[in-house]
């Protein structure tokens, strides 16, 4: 049967083009791959090849024609044994396929509601993390992290840990202390210093059915691997229509330590928290470090687990339970209060708690919320508290521009505007690369004093 040759779309954005030149004439036989015409698109002049074989029966659009719409019939191709007469009434010229226009995207009439907007009244989950009366032990964050990994590795032999110096050296920060001895070099794996490569290998291993824990010596070095983290780990579930997930934990110290300068001090929480497909955890206490890391290892999604070198040595109460986990997306209220809500997470909590203590002495009652996870984030806990106190201060060590605090402030503004008696004030790191000098470094971070000032500002004291 005779077929129409249509004006092709030759670039993602082309809607019409110029039929610059015909390289065949009526009566010519053509085979697949022969060039039929030259077409000028919005980008370039392209050669247009035949797909089917046959004879050019009729040229419908002469060369030199400008503004020829995509999908216009430009010629008629005849099969063996056909003649032009068979197709005299060929090709109504502007019979563009409607499907093409539809595919090119009239906007949908109504987009489904965003998940976060679904419940207007916040319903925070205030259940305790462990049963009342549970025996507590004192542990450092470091020990809690190690125990979490070891417990999960005993529980599931698909879990393994890889990274620089994690095995024989027992971890650059001694988080994997003793793990090589217990689990052997098949499951506690020293890598060469190749973040990009071993992160990709971790992602592939997760696709292949394992549950890798990838330790970055610090998250500053994960910059070399951020493509694998974001483009490969975070997006594959979506791009595969739900077929292929990536259960992996990326963990290590993040943010400023002490006097290590600009390249070793960045807090990446806001970067990762902006990426759908990742879960982002930034614990403060040892019990959260343990309970959240165990949850992270069991989670079927890629989890960014942001630790902090300064917190590693801090001691907290940890419940003595056989299998203690903390769910993602559930904030912890460390202090209840009525005058102001202080929202923080990770090491920011040290300033928040210190400030709340001092503010109490001055008669200001602060509610302190530890988000614990930034993705998912417990909006309900924040909003319920802000609706009670009508004021909010956020505390973090990240850079101020496009910070996670900015996101919180905007969410509070959109969802609790009528409850606010003052603008949300964000206490963050300063908008400078981290300096080395002790006094400058101190100034570059946020501080208890700044938090106290911010609270006074929003409470008009």
């Amino acid at each position, binding site marked *: 049967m005779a077929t129409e040759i249509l004006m092709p779309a030759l670039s993602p954005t082309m809607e019409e083009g110029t039929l610059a030149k015909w390289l065949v004439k009526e009566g010519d036989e053509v085979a697949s791959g022969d060039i039929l015409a030259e077409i000028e698109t919005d980008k370039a002049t392209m050669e247009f090849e035949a797909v089917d074989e046959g004879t050019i029966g009729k040229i419908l659009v002469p060369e030199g024609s400008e503004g020829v719409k995509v999908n216009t019939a430009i010629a008629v191709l005849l099969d063996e044994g056909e003649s032009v007469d068979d197709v005299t009434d060929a090709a109504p010229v502007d019979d563009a396929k409607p*499907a093409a226009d539809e595919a090119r995207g009239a906007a949908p009439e109504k987009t489904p509601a965003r998940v976060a907007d679904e419940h207007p009244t916040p319903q925070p989950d205030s259940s305790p993390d462990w049963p009342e009366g549970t025996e507590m032990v004192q542990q450092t964050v470091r020990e809690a992290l190690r125990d979490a990994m070891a417990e999960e590795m005993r529980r599931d032999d698909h879990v393994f840990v890889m990274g620089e110096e994690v095995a024989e050296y027992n971890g650059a920060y001694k988080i994997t202390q003793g793990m090589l001895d217990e689990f052997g070099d098949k499951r506690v794996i020293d890598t*060469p210093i190749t973040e990009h490569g071993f992160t990709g290998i971790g992602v592939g291993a997760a696709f292949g059915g394992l549950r890798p824990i990838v330790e970055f010596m610090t998250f500053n070095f994960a910059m070399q691997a951020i493509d694998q983290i974001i483009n490969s780990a975070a997006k594959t579930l979506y791009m*595969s229509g739900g077929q292929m997930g990536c259960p992996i934990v990326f963990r290590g110290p993040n943010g400023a330590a002490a006097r290590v300068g600009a390249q070793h001090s960045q807090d990446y929480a806001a970067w990762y928290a902006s990426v759908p497909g990742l879960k982002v955890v930034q614990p403060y206490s040892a019990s959260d470090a343990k309970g959240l890391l165990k949850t992270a290892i069991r989670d079927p999604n890629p989890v960014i687990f942001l630790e902090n070198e300064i917190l590693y040595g801090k001691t907290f109460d940890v419940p003595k339970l056989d299998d203690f986990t903390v769910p993602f997306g559930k904030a912890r209220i460390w202090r209840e209060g009525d005058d102001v809500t202080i929202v923080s997470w990770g090491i920011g909590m040290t300033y928040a708690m210190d400030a709340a203590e001092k503010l109490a002495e001055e008669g200001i009652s602060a509610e302190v919320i530890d988000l614990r996870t930034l993705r998912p984030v417990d909006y309900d806990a924040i909003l319920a508290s802000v609706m009670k106190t009508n004021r909010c201060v956020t505390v973090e060590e990240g850079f101020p521009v496009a910070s996670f605090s900015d996101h919180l402030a905007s969410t509070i503004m959109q969802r609790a505007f009528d409850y606010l008696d003052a603008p949300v004030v964000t206490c963050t790191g300063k908008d400078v690369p981290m300096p080395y000098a002790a006094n400058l470094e101190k100034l570059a971070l946020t501080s208890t004093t700044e938090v106290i000032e911010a609270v006074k500002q929003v409470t008009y004291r």
Partner: protein
Amino acid sequence: MAARKPAAKAAAIPNVAKDDLLQYYRDMLLIRRFEEKAGQLYGMGLIGGFCHLYIGQEAVVVGLEAAASKGDKRVTSYRDHGHMLACGMDPKGVMAELTGREGGYSKGKGGSMHMFSREKHFYGGHGIVAAQVPIGAGLAFADKYLGNDRVTFTYFGDGAANQGQVYETYNMAELWDLPCVFVIENNQYAMGTSTKRSTKSPSYWERGAAYGIEGEEVDGMDVLAVKDAGQRAVEYCRSGKGPYILEVKTYRYRGHSMSDPAKYRTRDEVQKMREERDCIEHVRQLLLTGEHASEDDLKSIDKEIKEIVNESAEFAKESPEPDLSELWTDIYADELPQGEPEEAA
């Protein structure tokens, strides 16, 4: 380290079963016709964005799939339609993904460059040049860890072969003896940059020597040579000796993607490859001269393939666009499919 010399030219009358030869013919033809159809649908505006056709390179995946066993894995770049068809994925599901429809492998959410099939052990479809290389080694890592004897085929281009992560991966793959066949599909161009303009050393596979990885160069326009080399590579990896590199010399006839005016090479260069080295024509001649098939037999195969491709195009046009609620699904998994995916019968 004893790296291999390029394989000797295939003997005039190769030792290959008629049925195998017919199967290669069919498989390569399916890819070619499928890609031509995809080009057409792109021209009609039914396929959007980037669309990288595999025309010319068919012998590479067909030859290597002939060397693969059940359970072996594969991962590649965005030029992935051929790999998917060759490992047995349904042309309908692939085409419907190209048109962004519900019936596509990724429900229309991945597109030409991002498709996956757990069932067929196809791990993508990756749009970032060379990102699939460590991922492939990671898949091989998983198999070694799990103690099975599977092999992963990790495909990448000559352009990708200059990325740093390839060499990071070579190092770890050899260090840990990962059962990974690295397949460099050297089609001589990365977009508009010929290998001569991008790469000082003349051969890519030889770089493996720096990491202690064995390898060889293969004539990628000869499906039998590819299969032969593939079998050597697979046997090597499966026996626990570690990774293996195949640099397969091939050629893409079409532009890099649909919007490539291809001014970086002459029409003659393309025409010469097509006329003298075409991989499908090669097998066609073997079939005819070996009297394994008549012109009529081949015509009827052509017809069958055309029908399969037309059906896939019809399906891809008729399958509805994804429901708007799909925007919000598959961002997070509640749980992952457990254990090994079932191999289709």
